[in-house]
């Protein structure tokens, strides 16, 4: 079994993408933490041009999306696609080229943004001169990954592969649309509509489908049972594919964008929240009867914690997209809380689960310090929960103070205690990653066990 896995999956590529993901996660989180201190009037690098908080903020979000999440997702795809299709990726050499190109994109993004070349497209602040390289990298990635899917001799494509293929079509289109149209061709209000579509589609058509595709792969494998309902899988996929791409304007509600587009976005948003509930139900149906795995298997625990966050986020989304909520919560920290719950609480957590499962396989060594991984789980979860509750409350306070017509400074002063708690939660999350990094490093550096003792099901053993 081990031999077959080696030849089918390029574990070296998985290893390097995971490692890069961990490194860029550290970059992104330290940036976010530094930025949080600005709100306590304690920024560690005041008056340093290339470490200005505004620029660091752009590094924080972009590196979270393209460094931490994208690298880990590529590692997941490199592992999942060959195993689902029984075919290796098109070319290992191309895989290495993509790895190198992608890390170059990320380094240029950090350098370019810090040097003052950020692009005014939220979630796409990668400098204009980096965008062509991103497009080339995405196209190569799609070719390398989709060829095994088309070559497979399996009788039908598994759910994960539906999501991956759709994401392959979406990601390049979305990136081109968002980074080029509002920058060069569509000014003003209509440009805002397209930017809204980009902000939304980056989460909805790149991160979400690949994330769910990986869940449809890892969860049944780790639980050793099939997905509960094929019908619900179908409803979930086609519902998401239909409704998710048509709600971009909900990022600019009550703006000068034509109201029919705003109403359409609101209706589609509420619709997709109902659709994603079917996906959640499907996964909890799968867990039914094996729920002790949430205690015993740390990867499953991360996955299902992320899914609970996903359900909460979507429920929240269906309410906050209405104009009633928008009056108060738009422009406030409520939205910041929501963004962290999605990008970190859902997809970040799923990636941690993948690390738990893939890191020992990629490095060919069992986890050295599993108790640290448990500590990492709890401290990260508590830190994020604190951040979300705190910033959601801050958002309500800010929104109502603004409406009351009190002096602007009053809303800033009232926010300060919330921003202190946010910094504390950031310290908890960053501290938790200290445990994580130690466990990653110690595992990678540990002596290679002899073949006989290499535990295949490392992550299925009880942890904490």
């Amino acid at each position, binding site marked *: 079994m081990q031999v077959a896995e080696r030849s089918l999956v390029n574990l070296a590529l998985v290893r390097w993408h995971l490692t890069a993901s961990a490194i860029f996660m550290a970059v992104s989180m330290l940036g976010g933490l530094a930025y949080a201190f600005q709100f306590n009037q304690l920024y560690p690098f005041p008056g340093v041009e290339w470490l200005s908080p505004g620029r660091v903020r752009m590094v924080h979000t972009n590196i979270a999306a393209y460094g931490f999440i994208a690298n880990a997702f590529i590692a997941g795809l490199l592992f999942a696609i060959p195993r689902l299709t029984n075919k290796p990726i098109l070319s290992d050499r191309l895989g290495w080229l993509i790895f190198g190109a992608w890390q170059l994109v990320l380094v240029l993004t950090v350098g370019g943004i810090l040097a003052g070349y950020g692009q005014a497209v939220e979630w796409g602040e990668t400098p204009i001169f980096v965008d062509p390289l991103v497009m080339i990298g995405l196209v190569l990635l799609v070719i390398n990954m989709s060829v095994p899917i088309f070559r497979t001799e399996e009788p039908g494509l598994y759910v994960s592969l539906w999501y991956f293929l759709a994401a392959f*079509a979406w990601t390049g289109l979305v990136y081109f649309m968002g980074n080029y149209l509002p920058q060069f061709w569509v000014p003003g209000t209509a440009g805002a509509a397209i930017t809204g579509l980009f902000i939304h589609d980056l989460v909805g058509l790149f991160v979400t489908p690949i994330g769910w595709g990986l869940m449809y792969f890892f969860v049944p494998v780790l639980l050793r049972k099939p997905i509960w309902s094929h019908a619900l899988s179908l409803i979930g996929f086609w519902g998401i594919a*239909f409704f998710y791409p048509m709600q971009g304007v909900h990022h600019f509600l009550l703006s000068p964008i034509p109201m029919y587009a705003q109403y359409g976005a609101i209706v589609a948003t509420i619709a997709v929240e109902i659709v994603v509930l079917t996906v959640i139900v499907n996964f909890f149906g799968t867990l039914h009867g094996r729920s002790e795995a949430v205690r015993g298997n740390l990867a499953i625990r991360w996955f299902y914690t992320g899914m609970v966050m996903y359900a909460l986020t979507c429920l929240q989304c269906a309410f906050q997209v209405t104009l009633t909520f928008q009056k108060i919560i738009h422009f406030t920290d409520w939205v910041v809380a929501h963004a962290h719950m999605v990008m970190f609480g859902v997809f970040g957590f799923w990636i941690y689960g993948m690390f738990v499962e893939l890191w020992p396989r990629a490095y060919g060594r069992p986890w050295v310090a599993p108790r640290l991984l448990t500590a990492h789980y709890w401290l990260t979860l508590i830190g994020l929960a604190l951040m979300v509750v705190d910033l959601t409350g801050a958002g309500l306070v800010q929104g109502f103070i603004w409406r009351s017509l009190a002096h602007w400074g009053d809303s800033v002063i009232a926010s300060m205690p919330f921003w202190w708690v946010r910094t504390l939660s950031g310290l908890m999350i960053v501290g938790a990653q200290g445990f994580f990094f130690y466990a990653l490093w110690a595992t990678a550096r540990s002596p290679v066990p002899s073949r006989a003792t290499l535990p295949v099901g490392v992550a299925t053993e009880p942890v904490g």
Partner: protein
Amino acid sequence: MEKFGASFLIAGVVTFFLGFFLQGVMPVLTLSSIPTRTVEEIAQNVIPQFEQLAKDYPEEFARYFGQVDAASFARALDLGRDTYIAEACFHCHSQFVRPVSNEDLRFGPVSTPEEYQNLMNLPHLFGTRRVGPDLIRLAGLYSNDWHAAHLYKPTNVAPYSVMPEYPWFFDDDKRPNERGLALITYLQWLGSWVEEGDGGVTAP
């Protein structure tokens, strides 16, 4: 359908373009009747604060922008906008007034699409977060000197402020340099097209 991978690729393309049409192309078509103005056209109406900048900082103004005219104003607007983007000002300051939450009482008239149909808004800078206040009605609210002092160190004029300081917009004498002058020009331009009195909003 699950046997044919191409159907999922096609589904991806079709659903993308369906959403793109409904949420992107249709707003573009609706708004296409509004003529798009260039920066040069906008710069024909030189704002008084730009003339005042030439008097406030004559040496620096002459060095970086020369005379007060439409060409130098256009250049200042362009560079000011680029500086605004480079520092990610748009991540903490929005640029549109909504018709709710008493925003018209706090900031001024509600925003209209005409205001943004120009190449100063390529890319647009609507923003999604207000750590600081909205800026689209900022013109003339504060003096050039206030803006200079505020950009140099915001807590000088607002002790509670969490805005970063921008000493690199100033030379060694703490007088605004090229980027500083341009950014102040841009900020003073935001909303300069709003008519006084009846509060009418026209294109800039």
